[in-house]
């Protein structure tokens, strides 16, 4: 019996999903610790120090605490929606990772083998360092990320209380506004690369000999700003501003459900950082991929280059949070609609014009 | 040893309001005028707009309880930027009387008068929002009066809200009488 379809289409993806899920959960957990440590150092203090050596076991302690907490559902809340909302926010944040490439395609060989007694054969294949390579990758990422907004609105609504409602509405309006600018800001990249597939975009950067951030600097800046706004992080974190609305849309959530919202936020941060790296900073490529005498850098495996670049952007996220005050709601909307969107559209037009000129 | 004090301001006041001004004196360099309560609002407006040194800033408004002559002494302290000087205007009212509110002259008086009402029970006529400010809405009694028995207040509150007997009952005749015979530290 030919095991090809089973192994190629079911077993290998499952193994990759398992590995990715494990790594991702660990990364998100330690991102929370990193945030506290980095911000603490910027604020002349030390951050978590007690749990484990210099606080390294803090995320585990937090996770255990949140799971063991009492599950409080407000009396007049809509139970079903209340329980579904964090799940609706969390799942899209995770499944977006299925199209993000951590390495080139066809890099890991799976050897052919035959099971002697049963006569099963497998003819071997090469698999890439990503779960799948959708030819509409970018579209998939954008649309699945939008589902996360639904979870926030439902969470605020189902709590049946004023503070979460205000927070949810603000959050939804903010995310919708910045999504438009986000979409426009990456159009320049799509036009240059000529494809929606994320793997193709990175390969196109390799062929072009320059990371797209040098060809589309404005696009990158706009993308990153919109990305920060999408994930409700400082300076756009009004919906969950502690000092103004207590905790915004997740005021009424505690324990495990709160941890789901929390995880979703950090997962979304990593998504935005990964997208920025893939679209603008060459994905898994090493610096100067076409320069021969730097080829010793090839010994560093490509997922590590990817991780390094993503780490730089996550550091920027934390830096913004520690340094800047937050925008007021109307100023936030003004920045999104009156500044970012026109700039993004202008970027698209200019890129199109330059491409036409260069082509003939 | 208050000394009598006169100045163009006092003359102008006496000229305009005649017998409303009871006396004017100065103690430790601080000038005070005592007026009657009937035309308080007009006098305050006159002072606020008095030309060479308008008293545009009401510093404080408070009251002092003198149970011996059953009266309250209302004290208005105001300041004039032009003359860099303060003036204290006092007004005596009997315990059951109410007085005109000066909120229309200085908006500052809003909360200051609410506090006087809260602590002393003096009612102000034409105050936009006269209700308790520092104490809970349903509080009975006016604490800063000299006849307010705060030990009795303590005994009653503790009994009602905590269900136990307060230690202050040893010092309050009413609580002792009610509780029957027990020995207090003073006996």
């Amino acid at each position, binding site marked *: 019996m030919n095991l090809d379809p089973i192994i190629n289409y079911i077993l290998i993806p499952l193994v990759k999903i398992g590995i990715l899920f494990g790594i991702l959960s660990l990364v998100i957990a330690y991102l929370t610790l990193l945030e506290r440590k980095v911000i603490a150092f910027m604020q002349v203090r030390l951050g978590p120090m007690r749990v484990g050596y210099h606080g390294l076991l803090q995320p585990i302690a937090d996770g255990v605490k949140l799971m063991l907490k009492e599950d409080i559902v407000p009396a007049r809340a809509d139970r079903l929606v209340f329980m579904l909302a964090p799940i609706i926010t969390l799942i899209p944040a995770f499944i977006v990772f299925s199209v993000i490439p951590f390495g080139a395609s066809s890099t890991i060989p799976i050897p052919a083998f035959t099971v002697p007694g049963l006569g099963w054969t497998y003819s071997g294949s090469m698999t890439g360092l990503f779960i799948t390579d959708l030819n509409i990758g970018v579209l998939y990422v954008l649309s699945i990320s939008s589902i996360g907004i639904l979870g926030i609105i439902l969470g605020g609504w189902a709590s049946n209380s004023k503070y979460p409602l205000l927070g949810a509405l603000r959050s939804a309006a903010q995310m919708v506004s910045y999504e438009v600018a986000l979409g426009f800001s990456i159009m320049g990249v799509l036009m240059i690369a000529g494809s929606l597939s994320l793997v193709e975009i990175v390969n196109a950067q390799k062929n072009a000999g320059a990371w797209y951030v040098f060809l589309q600097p404005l696009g990158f800046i706009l993308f990153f700003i919109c990305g920060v706004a999408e994930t409700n992080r400082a300076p756009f974190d009004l919906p969950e*501003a502690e*000092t103004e609305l207590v905790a915004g849309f997740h005021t009424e959530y505690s324990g495990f459900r709160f941890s789901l919202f929390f995880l979703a936020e950090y997962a979304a941060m990593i998504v935005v950082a990964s997208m920025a790296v893939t679209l603008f900073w060459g994905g898994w490529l090493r610096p100067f991929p076409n320069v021969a005498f730097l080829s010793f850098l090839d010994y560093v495996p490509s997922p590590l280059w990817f991780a390094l670049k993503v780490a730089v952007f996550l550091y920027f996220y934390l830096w913004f949070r520690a340094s800047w*005050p937050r925008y007021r709601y109307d100023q936030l909307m003004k920045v999104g609609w009156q500044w970012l969107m026109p700039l993004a559209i202008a970027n698209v037009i200019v890129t199109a014009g330059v491409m036409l000129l260069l082509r003939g | 040893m208050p000394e009598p004090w006169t100045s163009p301001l006092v003359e102008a006041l006496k000229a305009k309001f005649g017998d409303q001004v009871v006396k004017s004196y100065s103690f*430790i360099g*601080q000038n005070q005028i005592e007026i009657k309560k009937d035309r308080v609002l007009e006098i305050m407006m006159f002072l606020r707009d008095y030309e060479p040194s308008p008293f545009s800033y009401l510093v404080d408004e408070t009251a002092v309880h003198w149970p011996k002559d059953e009266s309250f002494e209302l004290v208005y302290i105001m300041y004039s930027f032009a003359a860099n000087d303060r003036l204290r205007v006092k007004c005596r009212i009997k315990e059951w009387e109410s007085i005109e509110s000066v909120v229309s002259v200085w908006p500052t008086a809003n909360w200051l008068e609410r506090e006087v009402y809260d602590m002393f029970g003096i009612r102000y006529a034409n105050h936009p929002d006269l209700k308790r400010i520092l104490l809970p809405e349903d509080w009975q009694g006016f604490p800063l009066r000299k006849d307010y028995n705060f030990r009795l207040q303590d005994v009653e509150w503790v009994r009602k809200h905590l269900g136990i007997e307060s230690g202050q009952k040893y010092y309050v005749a009413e609580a002792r009488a009610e509780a029957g015979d027990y020995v207090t530290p003073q006996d």
Partner: protein
Amino acid sequence: MSTNETLFDASEITISMGPQHPSTHGVLQVKLKLDGERVDDAECVIGYLHRGVEKLGENQTWGQWVPTLDRMDYIAAVSNCLGYCETVEKLMGVTAPPRAQYIRTIMTELNRISSHLLWLGTHALDIGAMTVFLYAFREREEILKIFENYCGARLTTHMFRIGGTQYELYEGFQDEVKTFIKGFPQKVEEYETLLTENRIWIGRTRGVGVISAKDAIAIGLTGPSLRGSGVAWDLRKAKPYAAYSDFEFDIPVGEHGDTYDRYMVRMEEMRQSCRIVGQAIDKIPDGPLMAKITKIIKPPVGDIYHSIEAPKGELGYYLVSDGATQAYRARVRPPSFVNLQALRQMVIGSMVADVVAVIGTLDIVLGEIDR
């Protein structure tokens, strides 16, 4: 709600901000009527911290009441003490000796810096700039150490007595204060680089909570809030007390009466306080610490009002004495109480996020408001 009405049909929501809220600086309840994000009306409910300080003043002796006063404006406790001691001294007709006056001035100005640092930290924290909070507290820690070395307490200090001060300066006081003064202006520069030119900060504070000079005087606003509106009035210059007439300092004045101007006024005041301490620390005269007063304090019959420039505004004491060992009426005129009245007119018409900024800029302390 009927079945056809939904939550979104209601055009006005009433939200109660507080009494438990991360940014109302104490137990303050603000009842906001909101139309979407716009504030239609704001009503302050206070009294959650009322402890009967004025009634205590009538039942404790003149000297016993002083520690109670520290608990009023607990952030700037030294000013409360100074105001009261000066009032009683005035009533009794004694003056504290020059050495005590200088020590009082130095401590009060350090206290002003520490109060403004706390204001800066919490105000920035409310608007979102978390880091400034920790930097400000780092500096404040130095001042609190000096206070602790001097009188044993960091917060509720009870530093002065009626007639002068009780404690002598400790060894190393001059050096510690001089080290602090030398390093402090750079720290103020550091906070300014984080905030003053920051677009987001300017956006959150320019044009927010505007009050004109005329309205400010009418509502009784005093202190840096009044100076931010353009009225150059400071009790340290208008009616000098303690040793202020010996020193040179400027009064910063704002222009537009908005939150940004009040912020700049307070930052500059910190620098000016530094300047005063720098001038005073070298010239402390020798001499006794206490004036000659009787052991049992019995002021003559009469009443008096005296006020000082506390960090928050004009802190005044109206004392009525009938010759006994206890006051007949002890009234405190708290600056934050009168300043808070201005909240309503500053906030109507602006957004919810601005309410938090305005509460921060008025610099209120509930201990003082509620007494």
